């Protein structure tokens, strides 16, 4: 097991805050969970705990950004994108301010805390704000590359991070082209687009399918908006069977984004895997992923079903 993406976020932010004196970090009483505690220990005077008051935190982030700072604002994905949505939309999105909203504990893999803490709508919510860029890395190395990237570009970004530890997919030598889709394996006629921890599930499924003679392309989508339409178009053209998999409501997330490209550029039948418009529940996260059909076995089954 590698690090959780939130842990990698904490580590790289701790580095960036030393490199760039224009970075300030805001948190809402969750510094040890979001891992902004690392940056706090490195540069205490540019880390501000705003208390359990997420809406105010986003407004304060807007104020800092309008004063020339690069702001990292963190809390759980649920509260960053849900509680403070309208503040994010009107005070950060509309004025195109330089705020990086890094929401941790996204998706059902939060586990035992249950529905009130399981953001399964955050990608949809953030994607719908004009000009907001939306990212979701799948492992530690990619997280570090994405966080560095968003710290260097101007404008509002949402980065979706996970609570649980995940297997490493990439390594130090991986060359990332942030913003582009990343084809990890090359199959013949099946292609699965994945984001976040579904990439690891798909890679597991890909190995199993390979043993049975089915070659699947696994395409990691870490930049959900702006979506690499060229890259997606190419994959749609090259494969007959298209699947998408995300730990998010099937409404408004990765599957929807791929379908949007498909519908205007290359109409295709798209099989979407994700949370089927229901609230999940409390439980150990591995068991939740199985119950809500987001396990590698579910991908194997899906591929066989639609082939």
């Amino acid at each position, binding site marked *: 097991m590698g690090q959780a993406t939130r842990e990698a976020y904490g580590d790289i932010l701790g580095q960036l805050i030393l490199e760039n004196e224009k970075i300030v970090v805001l*948190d809402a*009483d*969750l*510094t*040890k*969970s979001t891992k902004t505690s690392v940056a706090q220990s490195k540069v205490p005077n540019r880390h501000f*705990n*705003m*208390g*359990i*008051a997420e*809406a*105010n935190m986003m407004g304060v982030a807007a104020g800092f950004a309008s004063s020339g700072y690069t702001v990292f604002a963190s809390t759980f994905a*649920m*509260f960053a994108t*849900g*509680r403070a949505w309208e503040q994010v939309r009107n005070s950060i999105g509309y004025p195109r301010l330089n705020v990086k909203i890094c929401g941790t504990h996204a998706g059902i893999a939060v*586990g*035992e*805390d*249950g*529905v*009130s*803490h399981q953001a399964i709508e955050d990608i949809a919510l953030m994607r719908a704000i004009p000009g907001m860029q939306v990212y979701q890395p799948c492992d530690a190395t990619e997280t570090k590359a994405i966080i560095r990237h968003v710290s260097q570009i101007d404008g509002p970004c949402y980065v979706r991070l996970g609570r649980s530890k995940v297997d490493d997919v990439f390594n130090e030598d991986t060359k990332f082209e942030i913003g582009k889709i990343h084809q990890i394996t090359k199959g013949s006629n099946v292609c699965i687009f994945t984001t976040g921890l579904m990439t690891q599930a798909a890679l597991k499924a890909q190995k199993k399918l390979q043993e049975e003679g089915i070659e699947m392309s696994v395409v990691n989508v870490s930049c959900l908006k702006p979506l690499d339409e060229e890259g997606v178009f190419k994959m749609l053209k090259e494969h007959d069977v298209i699947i998408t998999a995300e730990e998010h409501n099937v409404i408004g997330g990765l599957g929807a984004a791929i379908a949007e490209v498909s519908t205007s550029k290359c109409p295709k039948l798209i099989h979407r895997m994700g949370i089927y418009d229901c609230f999940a*529940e*409390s*439980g*150990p996260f591995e*068991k*939740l992923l199985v*119950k809500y059909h987001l396990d590698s076995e579910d991908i194997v089954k899906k591929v066989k079903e639609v082939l």
Partner: protein
Amino acid sequence: MDKISLKNHAKNIRKNIVKMVANANSGHIGGALSATDILTVLYFNEMNIHAENVGGVNRDRFVLSKGHASALLYSTLHEKGLLNEDLMTFRFIDSKLQGHPNMNYVAGVDMSTGSLGQGVSAAVGMAMANKLAKNDYRVYALLGDGECQEGQVWEAAMAAAHYKLDNLVVIVDFNGLQIDGDITKVMNPIPIDEKFKAFGFEVEVIDGHDYDAIDAALKHARNVKGKPTMILAHTVKGKGVSFMEHNAGWHGVAPNAEELAKALAELEVL
């Protein structure tokens, strides 16, 4: 109910809280133990809630605005004989005992909570509904002191005073701690009592572990007319387990087997 019986109920409630969180290997103990005595008095002395009326809304209602203390609510409903679920399914898959309370799964859970600041608004709505329906059921809401940092708490307070909700009692569990530590260091919400006073509340400041004081404050609130009451209850986070007391580290951590045994032994003689 006499003090000895209350004390016994509180002891059972506390022991189950610790067992549930240990068994689930996740959950929130500190803020559950700090408010145990308050809920004990509410459910055993104050509220009109029993097996015959728990399934409906024609009764007093309680909103756990600090929803992370769910183990306290389940354990209290169980102690009162209103909950038949196996407490040890808490936070497991397929259980009605969700990590944060779900009002559709458990009779006696009066609002689904977990996102801080929201429960108290729902309690205001319930109190307004009772006024509209001209009944005399009362509504109680329990808030954390860290939770009082949420702006929504103050929007709710403004509405409660504006609509003269003398059927509403807001209790703040003043344990001085939140996840990142001392509330005055993270984001100081103090003075909480003066703020509620300024918003138009009747305010009482009590020791939240003194059954007589809790009881008296709740009785007093019944006689207040034309405004809501806020009870600021001084408490100890982790109350009853020496190594958890006054320790923010025990906000959301489960005890291991050894810690569980030690905690249960201490609670037995509390």
